[in-house]
């Protein structure tokens, strides 16, 4: 396998303090191939790629590029070896121009005073933009571009550094379907020109669409490299999780009750146009739509995070006004944000404290307000068992957890408050397939226990799998409603995009 490879990583080991994350992982990529890189949360995927990107240094093992052993200890040195890492959260200067972003590390200078040669910089930047068929002015300020365009700027930057190996970390997570198609076209073009593309993703349909080969990492080791045309989704899933998964979505036996738990009437603000719907007890309601369709904004408005110009909320038959998250929580509403790093967690705090944060007031000794550490510990213990959180100890800082485990902590945190109405915004984003299955089961359990759930997602299959009913949003309006029986992925996507 290795003989015609351009990049070879052999027997890579890496530990953080006492935890061994990589236990001898191997990986190789040929020129002119798109190589998928899969693995569950905590498999060591990001650590492995960060070593290749020069962000971490390896403990042992070797990296060969074109047959030559290389060593680097910073992202810049990796770039000089022709490796560009396009991160999921883009690393751009949002207030600077596109050309500045591409050439920041080597701004061209002119004259004896060595002033920046802006003209030359813009011309050179334009050439790279042309190469990826991106028709934007290099003087455009990056924050005025869409996420998709910003990603293209990162690609242009990688090309300008003569990158031979380009790593894409979940590049489609915030792209629309159309933007994804454009991105894929460019990735294929780069491949055809002889670049090595490494494509990290959780989405199997995309992996099957674009990758030539796939390597799977599990528990710090590589457990298989397969050509896409020789494999199936089921086979790949079983390699990733290590066991065969019989049933992905849990059975939905619970029937929604007659009683209406939540009714929203005529919600309007600058993102929402007259949104009305109702939610019954024990019902799981899905909300589907493209990025920016107003799904999250609707949830934020219900939870009191964003203001509403008009509209009413009726909870258990009683009209209420919710102007702040604390008011919403008092009414029994829980909200899992899509932005778990920004709004869901206090990253520098440990798991124990994060979990108990929303229920702290019920955990204090009256009058003196001391915290009841034992009860907090019991809550945390229960959450660990219920959600299978993988961590060194409850006192580990959440910043150090893998994305999937962080998501479990946020979810566990809101489960502690035991809301009557639970709004989940992209609950499975960045979560591996095994944890997803666990989360789906937890959501169905909620409904069985008489709670009402709203699940917001851009993945149609998961809504089809666990929801009683699905609303589709488009441009701040509800564009369609589908019952479980007659919803299909095609109908949902069509409706979300505005097709007939």
């Amino acid at each position: 396998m290795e003989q015609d490879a351009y990049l070879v990583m052999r027997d890579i080991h890496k530990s953080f303090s006492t935890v061994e994350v990589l236990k001898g992982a191997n990986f190789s990529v040929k020129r002119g191939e798109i190589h998928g890189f899969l693995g569950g949360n905590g498999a060591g995927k990001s650590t492995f790629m960060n070593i290749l990107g020069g962000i971490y240094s390896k403990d042992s093992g070797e990296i060969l590029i074109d047959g030559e052993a290389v060593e680097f200890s910073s992202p810049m040195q990796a770039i000089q070896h022709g490796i560009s890492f396009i991160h999921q959260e883009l690393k751009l200067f949002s207030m600077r121009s596109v050309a500045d972003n591409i050439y920041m590390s080597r701004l061209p200078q002119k004259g004896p005073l060595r002033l920046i040669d802006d003209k030359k910089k813009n011309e050179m930047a334009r050439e790279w933009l042309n190469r990826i068929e991106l028709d934007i002015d290099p003087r455009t300020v990056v924050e005025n571009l869409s996420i998709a365009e910003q990603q293209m700027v990162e690609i242009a930057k990688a090309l300008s550094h003569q990158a031979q190996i380009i790593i894409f970390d979940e590049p489609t997570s915030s792209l629309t379907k159309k933007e994804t198609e454009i991105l894929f076209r460019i990735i294929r073009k780069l491949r055809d020109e002889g670049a090595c593309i490494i494509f990290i993703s959780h989405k199997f349909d995309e992996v099957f669409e674009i990758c030539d080969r796939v390597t799977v990492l599990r528990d710090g080791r590589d457990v298989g490299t397969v050509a896409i045309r020789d494999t199936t989704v089921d086979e790949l899933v079983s390699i990733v999780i290590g066991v065969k998964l019989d049933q992905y979505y849990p059975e939905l036996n619970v029937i929604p009750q007659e009683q209406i738990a939540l009714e929203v009437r005529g919600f309007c603000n600058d993102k929402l146009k007259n949104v009305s719907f109702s939610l019954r007890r024990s019902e799981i309601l899905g909300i589907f739509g493209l990025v920016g369709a107003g799904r999250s904004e609707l949830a934020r408005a219900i939870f009191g995070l964003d203001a509403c110009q008009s509209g009413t909320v009726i909870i258990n038959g009683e009209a209420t006004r919710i102007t702040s998250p604390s008011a919403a929580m008092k009414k029994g509403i829980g909200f899992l944000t899509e932005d778990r790093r920004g709004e869901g967690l206090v990253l520098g705090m440990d798991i124990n404290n994060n979990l108990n944060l929303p229920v702290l007031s019920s955990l204090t000794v009256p009058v003196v307000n001391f915290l009841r550490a034992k009860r907090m510990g019991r809550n945390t213990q229960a959450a660990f068992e219920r959600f299978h959180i993988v961590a060194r100890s409850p006192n580990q800082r959440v910043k150090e957890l893998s994305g999937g485990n962080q998501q479990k902590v946020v979810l566990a945190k809101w489960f502690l408050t035991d809301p009557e109405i639970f709004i989940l915004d992209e609950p499975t984003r960045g979560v591996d397939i095994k944890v997803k299955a666990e989360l789906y089961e937890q959501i169905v359990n909620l409904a069985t226990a008489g709670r009402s759930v709203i699940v917001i997602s851009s993945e149609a299959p998961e809504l089809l799998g666990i929801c009683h009913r699905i609303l589709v949003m488009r441009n701040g309006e509800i564009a369609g409603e589908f019952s479980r029986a007659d919803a299909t992925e095609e109908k949902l996507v069509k409706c979300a995009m505005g097709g007939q």
Partner: protein
Amino acid sequence: MCDGGTINMTKRILPGRGINYLKPAILLIFAVYIAIRVPIFFSPANLISVISQGAVIGVASIGMSMVILAGEIDISVGAIIYCTGAIASEIFIETGNLPFAVLAAIASGALFGAINGFGVAKLKIPSMITTLAVSNILSGLGSIIIGSDSTLAAGSAYKVLSQTKILGLLSSSWIYLLLFAVFAVVICKTRFGRYIYAIGDNQDALRASGIRVDRVMMAIFILTGMLCGVGGLIATSRLGGTQFNLSLGTEVYCIAAVVVGGISMSGGRGNIGGLFLGVFIVAALDNLLRLMSVNVYMYNVIWGIVIFLVVLLDVLEKTQKTRGVRRISLNLNKNQEKER
């Protein structure tokens, strides 16, 4: 969660896009009011004196603008001016050598700036705290140098530095204008200048581009210290010596000048040309309050209110910008629809 809250708050106070016109509108109303109430303000002689009175704030504001563009703050500016001014005066009294006094002020300014830079860039102490500590040290040190007499008289020979008239302007004004021109080019047109903006924008990305962010940060604080050294020279030379607490607190006016000039307190955003206007407005307001003989205590109250309002304006502009970004993501979907 807090973020959502502020957006709601500001929306309630001031709706929509009018903010862009707010600053020019306030200025215009203010100017008309002054023209009627204090006509002497707009006389050429007075305007020239505004520029010369603004020289100390102006020189120090050049440094402050670099610090703020990089997303940090320097509240030791006033104390550096005070201390370097005392050092220069003392040396001039002892030796009578003017170049030597100038050199001493700028070199000691560089040293104080280096201490700030070391704390911020190497020891990673927040700039607010580092410069607060340095500010305390230097205001004490300055007073020790001045000694128990509470004044240092350096005589009229020392005044030559700032009070010589060249082409109708005082030399202090020329020093400020010259330094402004030089630094405008440095900030707009050199790699170093571009790195200052980039630090305030996304420090991690700059580090990943292979730039030594700590060195850039160090240089910013050292340059600010040196500029404050020049400020110290001008301030003391104007008086022909120094006195207790001279120029302490100047940083507040510098921050006001920088923000009025359109440079964002959160870093990375702003035009250096605006700073010139900012300095002029701050100096003009100072001049005006003196022309109207406002008493010292009221003077402080008014300045406090002005700075509060100016920074509020900056915050409002910022929230409007972030809302603008959200609007763009919505438009994207609309465009898609059109294509279909």
